[in-house]
């Protein structure tokens, strides 16, 4: 390690342009802390505005960065189209979440929540643009700690505090286990960049028992963030206990970063024919199958819509894993699935929140007869549910079709029965998911209620966003080209 200091400095300065969107986030984070401390009392929403401005600038620099690819900070920082698009998705959805928070939780001085949100976003950016284990771990921890705070931030009753506590305990244990796995991997390979030749060579030479242990430990950490089975047990409680805006955040954004990291990892590890790549392949197939099954089957029994959505997002994680499995050189369909998933989930949580505002309940039973009172909202909600099942003409269908397509091409070339089983399970679970997603229109339109519910007519910014997202769900379902052409321009 005889690199001279000026040389290091030169490299850091040269890398800064690649880091602009994140620098903006860091500055915004600090600004938000200050505005929350000093200005929030006098000018309400000042922190919100600061947060929005930060996100807008970050977005601007991201778009500016679009054609660029490169690495910076001695290979720690990786900018490629996958990372850029993932970050675009992250920033855009953070914007919506910020508006969500502002609309719902502006009564008290809640300025700090925006700085935490920005910190979480920064963590996600790190996750989606690195191939270095150290950075990845830092990213995961940043997201996790920010999420712990967000879940507990608005807690008013025991259930909400319990949710936050569960989340923290489970998260810390998983992080610790992952760190232990990382230390093993580092010991075996002497290199923390999982794409480097040295790292792969080290894994090839390592004894099977230790490598199995290390890999499984690492997957524990990622599994916690993605909430795939068996590391999903925290998510239903947390989703149900957290305020809806935070649940919307938890179910979408952290998964984007984690799935991008996992996709990179999976791609570099399975490109060889050695034990550890076989292990990863079998791991991902097994976990995807089990996750799809358990997520969808458990959702059947839920009576609370937020809890149901938690299981539904576990089920979708299974499909995302399938997308990761089939991840080859082109990842446009992975991104397509991510965009579809984020759009659908954000829309449904906004709807859930709007209904909760009117009825004060997230129980499915309380939806009875509401379809007549709020026809537009429930029609849109039903369309989103249709998309979540994966029925045309919606974006959910196209996304599912693309994942199936890429997985099938894998199956055709390998003839592996496990892959076929995964495909069949993927198809069958969408039939299962019909049962629980259609509880929403079932209660809203098919059932009547005795209790009169007073529905206030109101047009909110949030509803407008949700309707726009619903239109996108249909539009991208009929013309996936529009999204796809955009995603694949810089990939070819």
């Amino acid at each position, binding site marked *: 390690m005889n690199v001279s200091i000026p040389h290091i400095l030169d490299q850091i300065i040269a890398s800064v342009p690649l880091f602009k969107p994140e620098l903006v986030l860091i500055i915004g984070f600090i600004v938000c802390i200050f505005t929350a401390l000093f200005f929030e009392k006098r000018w309400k929403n000042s922190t919100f505005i600061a947060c929005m401005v930060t996100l807008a600038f970050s977005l601007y620099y991201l778009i500016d960065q679009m054609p660029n690819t490169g690495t910076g900070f001695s290979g720690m920082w990786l900018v490629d189209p996958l990372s850029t698009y993932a970050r675009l998705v992250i920033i855009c959805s953070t914007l919506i979440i910020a508006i969500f928070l502002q609309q719902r939780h502006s009564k008290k001085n809640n300025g700090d929540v925006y700085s935490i949100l920005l910190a979480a976003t920064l963590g996600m950016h790190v996750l989606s643009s690195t191939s270095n284990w150290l950075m990845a771990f830092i990213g995961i921890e940043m997201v996790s700690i920010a999420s712990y705070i967000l879940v507990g931030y608005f807690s008013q009753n025991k259930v909400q505090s319990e949710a936050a506590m569960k989340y923290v305990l489970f998260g810390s244990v998983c992080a610790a286990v992952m760190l232990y796995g990382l230390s093993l991997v580092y010991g075996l390979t002497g290199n923390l960049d999982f794409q480097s030749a040295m790292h792969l060579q080290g894994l090839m030479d390592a004894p099977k028992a230790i490598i199995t242990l290390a890999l499984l430990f690492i997957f524990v950490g990622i599994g916690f963030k993605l909430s795939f089975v068996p590391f999903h047990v925290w998510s239903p409680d947390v989703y149900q206990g957290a305020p809806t805006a935070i649940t919307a955040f938890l179910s979408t954004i952290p998964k984007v970063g984690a799935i991008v990291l996992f996709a990179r990892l999976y791609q570099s590890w399975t490109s060889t024919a050695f034990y550890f790549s076989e292990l990863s392949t079998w791991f991902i197939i097994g976990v995807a199958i089990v996750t799809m099954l358990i997520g969808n089957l458990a959702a059947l029994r839920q009576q609370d819509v937020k809890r149901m959505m938690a299981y539904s997002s576990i089920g979708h994680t299974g499909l995302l894993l399938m997308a990761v499995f089939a991840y*080859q*050189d*082109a*990842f*446009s*369909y992975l991104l397509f699935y991510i965009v579809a998933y984020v759009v659908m989930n954000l829309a449904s949580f906004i709807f859930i929140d709007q209904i909760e505002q009117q009825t004060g309940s997230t129980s499915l039973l309380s939806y009875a007869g509401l379809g*007549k009172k709020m*026809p537009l909202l429930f029609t849109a909600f039903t369309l989103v549910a*249709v998309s979540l099942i994966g*029925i*045309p*003409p919606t974006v959910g*269908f196209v996304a599912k*079709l*693309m994942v*199936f*397509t*890429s997985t*099938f*091409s894998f*199956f*055709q070339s390998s*003839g592996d*029965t496990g892959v*076929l089983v995964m*495909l*069949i399970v993927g*198809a*069958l679970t*969408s*039939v299962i998911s*019909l*049962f629980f997603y*259609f509880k929403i*229109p*079932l209660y809203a*339109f*098919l*059932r009547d209620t005795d209790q009169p519910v007073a529905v206030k007519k109101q047009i909110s910014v949030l509803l407008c966003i949700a309707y726009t997202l619903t239109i996108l769900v249909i539009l991208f379902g009929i*013309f*996936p*080209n529009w999204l*796809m*052409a955009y995603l*694949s321009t810089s*990939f*070819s």
Partner: protein
Amino acid sequence: MGLLSILIFLPLVATLLILAIPSSAKATYKYIALCFTLLQFGISLYLYGNFDAKLGGIEQMDAYQYVEQLAWIRMDLGTVGKLEIDYFIGIDGISLPLIVLSTLVMLMSVGASWNIDKSPKGYFALLMILNMAVMGVFSALDFFLFYVFYEVMLLPLYFLIGIWGGARREYAAIKFFIYTLLGSVLMLLVIVGLYFSVINPATGAHTFNMLHMMNPANYVDGSFFAHITNYHEVFGIPARLIGFIVLFFAFAIKVPIVPLHTWLPDAHVEAPTPVSIILAGVLLKVGGYGIIRVCYSIFPDIAANTNWWLALIGVISIVYGALNALAQKDLKRMIAYSSVSHMGFVLLGIASLTAEGLAGAMFQMVSHGFLSAALFFLVGVLYDRVHDRYIYNFRGLASLMPKYTAYVAIAFFASLGLPGFSAFIGEAFVIIGAFNAESMSTGIPRWMAVGGSIGILLSAAYFLWTLQRMFFGQTRLQGGQAWQEALTDLNTREQVVLFPTVALALLLGIMPSLVFGNLNASVIQLIDLIKPYL
């Protein structure tokens, strides 16, 4: 924008119009729906009038008529290749009769919906979306497009049954949805598999084009569904056989065959009259159409080897459906089971792989389409008046409702296959086809034809018995005086809806060439496609 596209998307315009008009003017909805379906019917008659009967279709692209082909989705999936999806529609002799039938049945169903007063806005909007999807299914030639329309059909039906249906509507609606979706998600996997096995010879890209899938030359050697040099097996079963079975399973649920028919009695009984009409008149035909267009045309080799089993399923459906119909005490349930029995003829005819049998199956679909629609409409007439359709609650209706009885009698006689009516032609041709199959060595034994004839006998039994139980004898009603007053004879609107179907049954019974003329070339084309594998 060609005529066929206009036919498909007219109902969408109607939907938007209905949604745009405020609920205060809700009386206009039914007139909008009526106008648009009338217009559609006119267009379909025009298509029929200008159809060139000499062109075969099936796998020849040039032989399709009113073809429109636009590039719809082009996506670069990297190593997976380019995704090539077209907006590709056109009709041949197989789809033309069904399109004309669908527009007619849709018209009838709008006529039957005249008295809907529970949120008419949603009702007519959904009905029109369903209408669009049905037209799309019958004209799509791109598998992706076909699948989209196929699935879009489900959603409006779920709500139409679920919201406007009878007492057990929730159960019936979800059962129907689950059954169909189960078939279609597995179909999706086969579609993906076919996509990877087929190359568009013009561009070299993988394609969803159904016509390319029908040509063995377009299959990639060694691909999953390849014709020759295919070593792919799934759980020990050859890949092409699996593909055929899965597709057949998806469409067989629609037909429906025994034992996948259990959704049908529930859906029919719980659905409101207009939806029953569409279900029986059009949606069951989607199953038969799918088997011809997709299973048989894309997998002719498997079709030639499995037709014994398909014919067996057909015979079982005929006999089992008829026996069930005999045992029913609910009039609507009886007619629902008679549908199962009559659709069994379609399957038997298709599986016979003879020109007579296939043409008979097509004819039977058309004939059953409007006859079952008429039957369900007639049940609806009774149910509208007294909200009861239990067979034993009525007796001697003939003296009370003479016109109604006349229509019921004609519809019953037409359905049971009395010579001179359309159902006779369809069933007779199917039986002839099945009987000839042995001499054509397509693998269908003669006893199956005999089994089919037993079905005709049984259908005479249950129809005539019902006629006798409900309409003849001394008038005796469960509801007493109140019912006697409520049971008024048919009004003008009801007669306007019913008369064309009865007239058509007679017309087609006397001049079957009106249907046969157009589909003959296509049927022979299909037989030619399958013959090399026999």
